[in-house]
């Protein structure tokens, strides 16, 4: 590894950052998450912590720009130079800039987060089947309103899961219109526009008015890029036009003809020869997360490494998983020392609101994506043995977890109890009171229930809150008080005197439910406060006691939760 001359570094470990603008290529929530994860790469191996600011001057100011973007180190169009960052210090120092003539993704092709529809903001699944035809991009097929959409599973015909793709007809970003969609045609300086334009701007970004007259209302927003839009050239945002003619020859797909750099391009009108309108074709794109992690390395004081597999090697290559090489770790620890003591505060949750709805009548619902810490910090002064009843008890990663008022404790099958820990540190978006939880044995996703909502954590990401009705549970039922996995994809959800069977694969309640708990699980309390699976036994809890049921549905033991399960 190398550091900058004079070992430039921050004189504090609580580093702040601010995201000044967004790329049209990716939803703001995906971008926020990519940056938060990129910072976490470094905070995981050093004493550094990163806090996001939404205004004012931060240590690391992050922005997207094209060509000359204000620092006299211009970007160079698509490919080549991707981003740059400055070593720690005042002013421009510490800042990170990303070339917005690149196609920013998560590194493996378009990362299209949907809005509305019934997919709860899930990413598009490409390719997907719709009426027997395979689609590899968002499509307007099957709709009369011209809104591009995609399926979020491989087969729309079978799963019927879909959402709408970013387009200027659905929303704008930035500007002053609170994400309102474009209004076409709109008038700007007396001229009518039927599509997004770069007129009036020197930074190359496409915008539109969100009322019919910009001159009068001054309301505008920036246009998100469609996944089918070309990149760069002189037609950014326009789709390829197939077929098109180039030097008298007809093309039905992207071509590298005419270019010495062999990059794929297309015309955006029927004839390049007549109109000269063109752009580069979308490809896998560059991982914003990986490039950001590299640039943040510079912003923290690391120069380029000559170790080919190191994150700080100057060339881009896509890798999955944790991107740091031992060389990177030694570099950051040379500057700031090793990680010591409790975990740093995890990056602040980056919350964005997206909506879910039927195609005709959208209704709001939140989808949150955050990074989470991987380990937990001990919080003193709450004695678990003094607690009379728990909010929820469940097994997660082979350890029995006890939840109560924002804290949790855990105990392995064989070993010492640890805790209390703060729920907010391990699972930042969850409320203090958890009524039930289970870990899906197949996907290892963790489902949390609180009141009439639920959240799903998958690795470092979370979806939710969502209403429990989304699972097919009745809106008039009480809280989900217990969850027990049966087989690989079924989970029994207990509430009051009833239980429902939830299919994890279809994400829906099976037909034939609810059933009365007492009729199937005889001999347990009819109104259990907690129900969970631990080892081969089901536990039904009421007050300080548990009823243990074996696989033959016989209650073989009744005992004290504190003594037997918590080892008080």
């Amino acid at each position: 590894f190398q550091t900058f001359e004079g070992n430039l570094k921050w004189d504090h470990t609580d580093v702040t950052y601010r995201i000044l603008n967004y790329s049209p290529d990716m939803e703001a929530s995906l971008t926020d998450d990519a940056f938060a994860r990129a910072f976490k790469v470094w905070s995981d191996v050093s004493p550094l912590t990163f806090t996001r600011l939404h205004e004012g001057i931060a240590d690391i100011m992050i922005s997207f720009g094209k060509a000359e973007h204000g620092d006299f180190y211009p970007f160079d169009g698509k490919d080549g130079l991707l981003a740059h960052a400055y070593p720690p210090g005042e002013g421009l120092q510490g800042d990170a800039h990303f070339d917005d003539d690149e196609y920013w993704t998560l590194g493996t092709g378009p990362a299209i987060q949907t809005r509305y529809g019934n997919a709860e903001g899930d990413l598009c699944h490409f390719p997907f089947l719709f009426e027997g035809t395979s689609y590899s991009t968002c499509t307007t097929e099957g709709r009369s309103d011209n809104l591009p959409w995609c399926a979020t599973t491989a087969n729309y015909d079978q799963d019927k899961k879909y959402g709408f793709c970013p387009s200027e007809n659905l929303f704008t970003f930035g500007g002053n219109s609170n994400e309102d969609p474009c209004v076409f045609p709109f008038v700007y300086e007396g001229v009518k526009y039927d599509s997004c334009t770069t007129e009036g701007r020197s930074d190359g970004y496409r915008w539109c008015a969100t009322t019919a007259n910009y001159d009068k209302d001054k309301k505008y927003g920036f246009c998100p890029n469609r996944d089918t839009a070309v990149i760069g050239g002189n037609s950014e945002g326009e789709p390829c036009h197939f077929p098109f003619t180039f030097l008298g020859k007809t093309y039905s797909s992207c071509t590298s003809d005419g270019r010495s750099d062999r990059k794929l391009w297309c015309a955006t009108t029927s004839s390049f020869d007549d109109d000269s309108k063109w752009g580069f074709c979308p490809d896998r794109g560059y991982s914003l997360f990986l490039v950001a992690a590299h640039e943040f390395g510079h912003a923290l004081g690391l120069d380029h490494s000559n170790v080919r597999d190191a994150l700080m090697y100057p060339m881009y290559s896509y890798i999955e998983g944790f991107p740091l090489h031992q060389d990177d770790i030694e570099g950051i620890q040379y500057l700031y020392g090793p990680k010591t003591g409790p975990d740093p505060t995890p990056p602040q949750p980056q919350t964005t609101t997206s909506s879910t709805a039927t195609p005709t009548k959208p209704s709001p619902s939140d989808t949150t994506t955050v990074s989470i810490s991987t380990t937990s910090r001990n919080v003193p002064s709450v004695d678990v043995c003094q607690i009379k009843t728990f909010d929820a008890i469940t097994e997660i990663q082979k350890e029995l977890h006890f939840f109560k008022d924002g804290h949790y404790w855990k105990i392995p099958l064989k070993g010492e109890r640890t805790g209390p820990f703060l729920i907010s540190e391990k699972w930042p978006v969850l409320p203090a009171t958890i009524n039930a939880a289970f870990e899906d044995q197949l996907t290892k996703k963790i489902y949390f229930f609180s009141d009439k909502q639920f959240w799903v954590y998958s690795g470092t990401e979370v979806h939710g809150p969502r209403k429990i009705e989304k699972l097919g549970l009745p809106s008039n039922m009480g809280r989900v008080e217990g969850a027990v996995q049966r087989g690989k994809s079924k989970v029994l959800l207990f509430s009051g005197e009833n239980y429902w069977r939830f299919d994890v694969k279809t994400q829906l309640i099976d037909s034939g439910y609810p059933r009365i708990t007492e009729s199937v699980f005889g001999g347990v309390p009819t109104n259990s406060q907690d129900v969970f699976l631990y080892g081969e036994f089901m536990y039904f809890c009421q007050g300080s006691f548990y009823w243990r049921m074996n696989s033959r549905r016989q209650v073989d033991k009744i005992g004290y939760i504190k003594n037997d399960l918590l080892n008080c």
Partner: protein
Amino acid sequence: LCIPLKSVYVTFPGDVVKNMTDKQLAENYLKQYGYIDVHQRNGLQGVVSTSKALKKLQKQLGLEETGSLDQSTIDAMKQPRCGVPDVRK
């Protein structure tokens, strides 16, 4: 069949990246990323300094240190990368 196709390159309007020869590409790259001191105006005409600069680049990128503009070096120069110079005063 063995006669190579005659490639026709055009200038695309609005293209930030201009068609350039490998030699021009190398010269720009070595300057941009600090291997040649731009203040000395050393281009590829300066054989000695260019060879040194190429060797430096090849060492940095883990390539064979030939000091000449070979294909693997040209390919490396065409890879997407970070804009922070590799060498600075």
